[in-house]
């Protein structure tokens, strides 16, 4: 078989610096020590490259490995785990793997959606969205009892996906003007956020706080959402 050139081993990530879905891919790649080229995408003016590599959804993140594109962040995370076997992010046991996937999906398809409703609504509608988010987060709260991370003693898939809760929901509570995740109700989640914040890979891969909050404030203004 012909030797692969340097180029074909190339890992490229089309992403966006403030996107939780893009950042989680960076966390996984960094955790496994995989060198990659990051290509910042303007999602308001999508590049031909992005449209070509993700014609179905036209969204970031897209991982390109050996010239082949993979999209949908949860699919990408599993691909990364399948391809680079060091520092696994999914457990070995099949039923634990199924649980990890279950929580990851809950975070993306329900918690994320409910949290966005909190940001985008006011009054009674917002109160309902806050309640919904809290009810869902209570499941995660219970999962963390007796554990440093969802993955046990080290970061796993659910931790990586749940950075959305730590650094996009909890982090922006002051801007939103509502404590969606109060520490009295969610002591385990807050303990977990502290653990995350002390982790080198996480520290390296999450958006810098000041710029992040500035960006979110600007987006809220643009969408006419009142920021606190």
């Amino acid at each position, binding site marked *: 078989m012909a030797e692969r050139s340097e180029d074909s081993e190339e890992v490229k990530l089309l992403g966006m610096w403030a996107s939780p879905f893009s950042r989680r891919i960076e966390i996984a790649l960094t955790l496994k020590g995989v060198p990659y080229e990051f290509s910042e995408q303007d999602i308001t003016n999508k590049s031909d490259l992005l449209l070509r590599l993700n014609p*179905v959804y036209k969204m970031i993140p897209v991982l390109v490995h050996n010239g082949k594109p*993979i999209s949908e962040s*949860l699919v990408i995370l*599993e691909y990364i785990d399948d391809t680079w076997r060091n520092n696994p992010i999914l457990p070995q046991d099949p*039923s634990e*793997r*199924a649980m990890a996937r279950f929580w990851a999906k*809950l975070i993306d398809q329900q918690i994320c959606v409910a949290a966005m409703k909190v940001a985008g609504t006011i009054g009674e509608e917002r109160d309902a969205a806050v309640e919904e988010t809290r009810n869902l987060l209570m499941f995660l709260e219970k999962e963390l009892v007796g554990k440093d991370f969802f993955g046990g003693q080290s970061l796993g898939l659910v931790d990586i996906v749940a950075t959305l809760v730590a650094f996009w929901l909890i982090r922006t509570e002051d801007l939103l003007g509502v404590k969606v995740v109060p520490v009295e109700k969610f002591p385990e989640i807050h303990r977990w956020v502290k653990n995350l914040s002390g982790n080198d890979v996480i520290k390296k891969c999450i958006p810098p706080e000041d710029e992040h909050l500035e960006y979110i404030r600007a987006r809220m203004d643009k969408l006419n959402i009142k920021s606190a």
Partner: protein
Amino acid sequence: MSASSPPDTQVKTTSESSREIYSELDQESNLAMTEEVILLDFWASMYGMRTRIALAEKRVKYHYREEDLWNKSSLLLQMNPVHKKIPVLIHNGKPLCESLFQLEYIDETWPEENPLLPSDPYKRARAKFWADIIDKKVNVAGRRIWTTKGEEKEEASKELIEILKTLESELGDKDYFGEETFGYVDIALIGFYSWFGVYDKYGNINIESECPKLIAWAKRCLQRESVAKALPESEKITTFISERRKKLELE
């Protein structure tokens, strides 16, 4: 609501014997704690069909338990407290929820027979990508077709045809989505075939004429025993939905 008999499995469970089981809850919890595989399901669920097919492909013996979705059992509520939905697969007393995750679990736990997912990481990623699209788009449109009217219904019909055409194009000239062999994506989609009659009828569309290759694929899949046993007859589903619509005062 009367359930038709569930597909041919190890333990026949009609709604009458389900009531017997309700009264023997202790026995049920014991059952849940054994080596046995139990599937909590609903006969018409295109998601439950996936798990039935996967278990059959792997020749895994299991107890099928029909759930009344309008009167959910304590076992279901206990095993899926987050979503309270079927299908729930119980193995060694542990519940597994979400049909696509059940497929992977089944593939990982019984790896010797009929692998459902490819071993190559990129091909696996493609399979999961397409199954994810199926989950995100097909039922959203399909369900709106029989639960709405007027413009909303028309829009839903258009959306359904669009996603089916996209899937048909992905299938291309292959026999199965899994390329040479029947696999994960085929299993993810095939249950919806038993609902095409509903979509045609209430959506005023003709899926066969719009997506002939997809229909050919479905008929090919139905030649597999696992699929033929898992899918109810299309007419039964259409009748069931007609009754649901009456209850929802849509007709």
